[in-house]
């Protein structure tokens, strides 16, 4: 094979990526156009009506945007107290030991479990507990979905944070130790400030994961098209309303669902872009 042909083949294949990504944006925008035109872009985002009675169709994305933001935020709150210790365990306290490698393998495996199985586990194990504790009558709620989501994003947050905690230079830590600091103080005063932006960016990426999670949320959130008024009430996220109704929708409703997909795509793309840029900056410094 000569060099010229080789270069052409490589370049041509690489063109797939811009074509696919451009195609995604193009297809979403053209198919969502109907909904935006009919309701108006801002009104679509801020209306909380979702009714498909013939003739009086009214679609708004606000309940689902709220649902997505609530599940993600609550999941993040439950995720931090577990993922941060895992990161410290693997990256600082037991760095390089066998226990640490077992723990990181286990958390990596958590990332491999299909989301539908998380959903089943949440439905058959966690939901009865929620009912028994009298938190929510049917057991399906924003809280139930968030708890399982929190478990799902632990591996994403912890493995990347651990990587940044490992990279904290030894001489900085040794300097603190030589001044008489305890390990807890070294972590607080040296490790966190140095690795902080990296740790933060790993949580940004974990948020990106949680925003788009579909099956787990669909199985646990209760699937009602209203704005959840507390974390124990039912709702719907952007991904779960699409999963629930896309198969049976047509016309304006289909277009509205695709519009919700476009909004979700833009949100996750922005969050991921911010996360990646932050990681790159944290790695360089």
């Amino acid at each position, binding site marked *: *094979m000569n*060099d010229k042909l080789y270069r052409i*083949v*490589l*370049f041509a*294949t*690489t063109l797939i*990526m*811009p074509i*696919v*990504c451009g*195609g*995604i944006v193009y297809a*979403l925008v053209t198919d969502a156009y109907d909904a935006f035109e009919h309701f108006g872009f801002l009104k679509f985002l801020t209306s909380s009506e979702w009714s498909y009675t013939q003739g009086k169709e009214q679609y708004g994305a606000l309940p689902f945007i709220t649902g997505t933001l609530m599940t993600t935020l609550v999941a993040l709150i439950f995720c931090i107290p*577990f*993922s941060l*210790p*895992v990161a*410290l*365990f693997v990256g600082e*306290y037991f760095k390089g030991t066998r226990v640490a490698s077992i*723990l990181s*393998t*286990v958390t*990596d*495996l958590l990332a*491999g*479990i*299909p*989301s*539908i*199985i*998380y*959903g*089943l*586990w949440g439905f058959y*194990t966690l939901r009865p507990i929620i009912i028994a504790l009298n938190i929510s009558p049917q057991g399906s709620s924003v809280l139930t979905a968030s708890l399982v989501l929190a*478990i799902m994003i*632990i591996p994403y947050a*912890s493995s990347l944070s651990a990587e940044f905690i490992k990279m904290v230079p030894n001489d900085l830590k040794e300097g603190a130790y030589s001044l008489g600091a*305890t*390990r*807890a103080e070294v*972590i607080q005063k040296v490790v966190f400030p140095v690795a902080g932006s990296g740790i933060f960016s790993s949580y940004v990426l974990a948020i990106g994961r949680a925003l*788009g999670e*579909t*099956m787990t949320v669909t199985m646990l959130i209760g699937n009602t098209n209203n704005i959840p008024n507390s974390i124990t009430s039912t709702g719907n996220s952007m991904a779960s309303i*699409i999963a629930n109704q*896309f*198969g049976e929708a047509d016309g304006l409703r289909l277009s509205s*669902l*695709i519009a919700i*997909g476009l909004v*979700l*795509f833009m949100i*996750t*793309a922005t969050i*991921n*872009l911010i996360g*990646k840029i932050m990681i790159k900056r944290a790695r360089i410094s």
Partner: protein
Amino acid sequence: MSTLKIKNRLYRDKLMLWIVCILAALSVGPLLAILGEVLLRGYDQLSWSFFTEPTPTAYKAMKAIEAGERIPGGIANGIVGTMIMLGMAIVIAVPAGILCGTFLAEHSNSRFAQIVSYLTDLLQGTPSVIIGIITYIWVVVPMKGYSAFAGSVALCIMMLPLIIRSTEETLKIIPASLKEAGLALGGNKARVMLKVQLPAAFGGIFTGILLAISRVIGETAPLMFTALGCSHIRFSVDKPISAVPLLIWEFFNDPNLQELIWGASLFLLLFVLTLNLIAKYLAKKWNQ
């Protein structure tokens, strides 16, 4: 400094260690709980016929439940569907991903490669349900029907960024001396890439492919609007087809078939975890 204050600091140091250890240990809990539950509830459903027979109709299952018998049938239609769609996705995504990754590794400084690199991240972070919508618009609407082909397109789009990344990253850590030695022997760039660099990177790329497969094999959302599902074993590419995760979703929604959930989940879970462990083992071996 008073001894009391020092004692206090040492105490807090110990407390922190214990809290970290306990919370980190608790994080192992979910994996054990999920594995345990799926194993306990699913192991007695696994039998030869579970893997060779298609899903029963809800009526048949209801009859069996009324008679107090085991629900007949299994998930063969799902396994065949998953294999067909995965096979087609691999045939396209692996070569395309490796070529694209090679380009990124070779031209890491060019503006175009940087843009493509960002796009790879973008595609990797795109929620799977959106990949489902896209494939619906691209494939299902023009072909006027759900099909195995559409499902494989969705899986292919999801696999691409993972394979591109692993190829790019593996090629970048291969010592430049290897490439230079090849070039010094008179090989042109293409030959050196094919005969020296790619074989040297094989372990890393293969690990990436395994991880990509394990990522997409459990995907449900993108298949719901593309492959749709089918209750008998089918080998045609242009008709709706089932997949193991789709079957789990079907069983979940059909009260008569609910008993079959656990067998199917156990199969899927063991498959995915084994793939993950093999990939992890290979990565470790390859790094040494």
